[in-house]
């Protein structure tokens, strides 16, 4: 559809296609469970957008259209791997087991993070895009020094691919043969800036210049993303070094709830991508091959509705934090100015004191 080097195992119509390097290893049961993940994550996204419109979230960054890229990559990870996300990695967070309500603490503006990164082996989101790529490479250098068979995986988009930190990360990963997978979701738009402004060559081809493999995969193809990510992760764990994966996809929605894409892109483009919907093509495959029934799909939809209700209840239950907590976790070993701030807040009656 876009590039002859695009790895695809499932067409937009839900037909399997062969690829010389990759073969799907997923059972129908696993495909069905990943279909469920994608439906739930899309529902999470819709509910979060509604919550933002109702004034319950400060912001939301939608991922509609990128579900296959994120669930495919997320489910290819092993429990001991460690992931370094941006703020748009809800499908990865879901795959790592981060409770959905925790994902929304950042957007509810009650936390700058939302979860314990060691519990889920999923770091807290980077908002200064590109920073996380270097952090992931450093983590991977730690894996090497520990002699562990683990990998780090980091996520960024076509926009951040222009950041110096991302390119420095490529240099370092290559120089030190670090066990890291760079997973770039090229969703074609960095807010209003089109891909063509970020790069004059397909992003995956940049890897060759840095000295490691780059692969472009159909980011709306769950089967292909899973296999490409799994292979790259296994290669990294085995000491084979870094891989750049460019998941070629599309941001169906706005950049965030503060954005208005009608100002910079035409509806016809969105229409084209609607026919490449990542969830519909898996559904078509399941109907044809696994004989999944309408009742089974309906059950997933019903589960997603219940999930959304629970998510809403959890978000609404998140109250305003005690202001004194702003002084928590700034330093490990304390700082007199932190104590001074706490004291002033108590003296002014803004807070009752530390918990």
């Amino acid at each position, binding site marked *: 559809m876009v590039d002859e080097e695009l790895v695809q195992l499932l067409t937009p119509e839900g037909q399997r296609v062969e690829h010389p390097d990759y073969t799907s290893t997923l059972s129908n049961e696993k495909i069905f469970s990943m279909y469920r993940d994608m439906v739930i994550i899309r529902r999470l996204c819709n509910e979060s957008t509604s919550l933002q419109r109702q004034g319950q979230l400060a912001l939301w960054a939608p991922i509609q259209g990128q579900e296959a890229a994120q669930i495919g990559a997320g489910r290819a990870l092993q429990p001991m791997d460690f992931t370094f996300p941006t703020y748009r990695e809800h499908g990865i967070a879901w795959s790592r087991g981060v409770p959905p309500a925790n994902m929304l603490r950042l957007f509810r503006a009650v936390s700058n993070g939302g979860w314990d990164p060691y519990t889920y082996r999923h770091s807290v989101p980077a908002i200064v895009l590109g920073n996380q790529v270097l952090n992931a490479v*450093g983590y991977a250098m*730690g894996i090497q020094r520990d002699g562990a068979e683990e990998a780090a995986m980091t996520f960024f988009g076509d926009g951040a691919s222009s950041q110096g930190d991302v390119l420095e990360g490529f240099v370092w990963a290559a120089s030190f043969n670090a066990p890291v997978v760079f997973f770039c979701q090229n969703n074609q738009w960095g807010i209003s800036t089109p891909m063509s402004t970020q790069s004059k060559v397909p992003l995956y081809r940049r890897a060759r210049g840095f000295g490691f493999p780059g692969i472009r995969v159909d980011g709306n193809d769950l089967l292909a993303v899973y296999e490409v990510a799994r292979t790259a992760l296994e290669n990294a764990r085995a000491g084979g070094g870094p891989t750049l994966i460019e998941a070629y996809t599309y941001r169906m929605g706005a950049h965030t709830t503060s954005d208005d894409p009608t100002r910079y892109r035409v509806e016809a483009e969105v229409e084209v991508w609607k026919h490449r919907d990542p969830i519909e093509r898996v559904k078509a495959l399941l109907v044809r091959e696994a004989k999944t029934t309408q009742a089974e799909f309906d059950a997933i939809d019903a589960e997603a509705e219940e999930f959304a209700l629970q998510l809403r209840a959890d978000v609404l239950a998140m109250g305003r934090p005690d202001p004194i907590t702003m002084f928590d976790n*700034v330093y490990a*070993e304390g700082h007199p100015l932190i104590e001074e701030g706490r004291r002033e807040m108590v003296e002014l009656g803004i807070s009752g004191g530390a918990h």
Partner: protein
Amino acid sequence: MATVTMTMAKALNEGLRRAMEKNSKVLIMGEDVGKLGGVFRITDGLQKDFGPDRVVDAPLAESAIVGTAVGLAIRGYRTVCEMQFDGFVYPAFDQIVSQVAKLRKRSEGAYTMGLVIRLPFQGGIGAIEHHSESPEALFAHTGGLKVMACSTPNDAYWMIQQAIESDDPVIFCEPKSRYWEKGEVDLDAAPAGLFDAAVRRPGTDITVAGYGSTMKTILRAAETAAGEGVSLEVIDLRGLSPVDTAALVDSVTKTGRLIVVQEAPVHASIGASIVADVTHRCFYSMRAPGLVVGGYHIPYPPTRIEEDYRPTVDRILDAVDRVMEFD
């Protein structure tokens, strides 16, 4: 008590060696830190003894030196990052401010940012541009970071070890003009906590505080002032964030006068902040307004004229006169 005489450069080298011997998770990373031993030879011989996995020669990218040290910290390593010169730290500024300073908060206490960023700072070596700057206030202004400066070989030896052991990220400022000055190093006991100020010369008339390179100039000024009948109490701040305010308050309560000496431009600086803070705390003890003797509000000048930019004994004595005139 085992004391040996060594240069500050050697003291830092020995301190790093001792920290690496004590904890196998301690790494060093920077440009040319391996075979070359760093452009100032601070890491001389360490790669030979600890191997290239622990003393890592970095590609030329400061943001990556700090950015990967962050990831290593998440993995439980303690990396001492060497910035080759003060003026080359700015490519890493984003990682330092956006990640190093904030990740503990963002992870709600899960992450420990145990890393040290060594910064050869201040001027006085006749270098070309970007090799003589004093950016310490940029870091001291940032919550989540700690900042200190050493001024003696003994402090250098101990403070580098204390900084590495700290669970908070430390910006470790080294006065490069004084790397080759010798001093006594006590190998048995640390002189003080990492951020404790030290009284270098007791006095009664004016508290004069400084850090790094300026300590030597201040002590010389104190000699001269003593000959003129003015007694300066000289305080080495050591900690720049946190500042040992209690030590300053003790001293100024006694002297009633305060001068801070630094190479950095005065506006929005460590000295300006200290004068405001100590004035607030010691207002009724003060007999004159505090003064800051520092650099001008300009890019660091071409070094043929740097001695007219850096605080000199004369400029400090001029400040002494101006402060004493209020009596």
